[in-house]
C-alpha cells in the first residue's frame, strides 16, 4: 500500500498442497512468513519482517473486507476471506485466507496467525465480482459525499 507498485495482469496460481503461513503482532507487523510466502510475495525475508502486512494489499480489494477482518479478529473470532494479493513486481494471486488470533496463557491476544490456501475457482469468481461492486461504491462515496456515508455504505455491503 505504501509503495507505488503498478498492478499487472500476471497471475500466480497457488498449489493445492502448499499453504502460505504468516504471523503478525497485534498491530499487524509481520513477525514470520514461510518460504511460500516469500516466493509468492516476491519480497525477501528481511523486507517482510517488521513491515506492515498491508504491503501485499492489492488495490482491487475494497477496504471494507479488511475492516471486517480486523473487527472480527480483534474480537477473538476467526475470519475466512477470499483475498487478492499483490506481489512486489505487481503480479497478483488469489488466496482463501483464514486468520486466527494467538493467545498467551492468560488469554490475551499476542498476535495473529494466518494460513492462506488455494481458493476454489467458483469462490474467486463470485468474490471478484462482489469486490468490484464494493470498490465502485467506495470510490463513489469517497469522491462525492462525506466520510459518514462511506461508513454507512460499507456497513450495508457486509450483508
Amino acid at each position: 500500500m505504501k509503495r507505488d507498485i503498478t498492478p499487472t495482469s500476471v497471475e500466480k496460481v497457488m498449489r493445492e498442497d502448499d499453504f502460505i503461513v504468516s504471523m503478525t503482532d497485534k498491530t499487524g507487523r509481520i513477525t514470520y512468513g514461510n518460504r511460500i510466502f516469500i516466493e509468492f510475495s516476491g519480497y525477501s525475508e528481511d523486507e517482510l519482517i517488521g513491515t506492515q502486512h498491508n504491503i501485499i494489499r492489492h488495490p482491487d480489494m475494497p477496504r471494507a473486507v479488511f475492516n471486517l477482518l480486523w473487527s472480527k479478529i480483534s474480537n477473538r473470532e476467526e475470519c475466512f476471506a477470499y483475498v487478492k494479493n499483490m506481489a512486489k513486481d505487481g503480479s497478483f494471486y488469489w488466496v482463501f485466507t483464514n486468520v486466527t488470533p494467538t493467545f498467551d496463557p492468560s488469554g490475551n491476544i499476542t498476535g495473529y496467525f494466518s494460513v492462506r490456501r488455494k481458493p476454489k475457482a467458483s469462490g474467486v469468481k463470485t468474490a471478484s465480482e462482489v469486490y468490484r461492486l464494493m470498490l465502485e461504491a467506495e470510490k463513489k462515496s469517497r469522491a462525492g459525499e462525506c466520510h459518514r456515508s462511506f461508513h454507512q455504505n460499507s456497513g450495508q455491503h457486509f450483508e
Partner: protein
Amino acid sequence: MTNSSLQFKVSALMWSFSATMAAATLTDLALGEINMPMVIFMLIVIALSAWGQWAIRRWLAPLAKLTVVIDEVAQGKFNSRVIDISEHKDEISLLCWSVNDMLDQLGTFFREQETSFRCNSEGKFYRQAMGTGLHGGFKKGLENQNILLLGMADQKRSAMRTRMLSRVHTLNTDKLLSNLFSSQQDMKVITDNMERLASLAKQTREDADESRSSVKDVVQRLSGIVERRVSWILWAACTRWWKCWGSPGTGMMRCKTKYSMHWRVPRKPVWA
C-alpha cells in the same frame, strides 16, 4: 556459548594447524634458513584460521535459535519460528526452514482441531477442520476428526430433537391436564345445576300435588257448600210452600225474598 564445545573443537583444530605451520617456520629459522614463502604461508594460515573461527561462530549461530524454538515446542508452544535465516541455502539454513515448515504444519493442525471442536460444542456443526495444504498424517488426522465431528453432530442433533419433542410432550400433557381439569370443573357445575333442576322439579311436583289436593279440598268444600245451600233452598222452598199452601191457620206469614235466619219456622231442619 551454546556452540562452545563445537566452536572450541574447530578453534582447537585451526589453532593447531596454525601452530604446526609456525613450528615448521621456526624450525627453519632455528636451522638458519629464512624461507620467505614459508613465512608468508604461515601468516596466511594464521589469518585464515582467525577468520575461520569468526565465520564458524556466525554460521553456527542459528543453531542456538533453533534450540530455543524446539525447546518451546517441547513445552507445547507452537507459535515460535526461526527467523533471520541466512539466504545462502547451506545445511543449517535448510534445517531451520524445515523446522519452520514442520511447525507450520503442526501449528495449523492444532489450531484447526481446536477451532472445529469448539464450534461443534457450540452447535456450529458447519465448521469442519480444513485439511487443505496439510501433508500426510496431519491431513489424515483432520479427516478422521471430521468423521468423528459428523457423528457427534448427528448425536447432538438427535438429542436436541428428543429434548424438544419431550418438551412439546410435557407442554401437551400440561395443557391436557389443565383442559381435563377445566372440563371436570364444568362437569361439576353442570351436575350441580342438574341436581338443582331435579330438586326444583321435585319441589314443583310436590307443590303440584299439594295444589291438586287443595283444589280437591276446595272442590269438595265448594260442592259441600253447594249441596247445603241447595238443600236449604229446597227445604226453604218446601217450608215456604208449606207455609204458603200447606199449613192452615198460620195466618199471614212473613215472606222473605232473601234467605235469612229470621224466618219463623216451626222447626229447624235437621241438618243445619
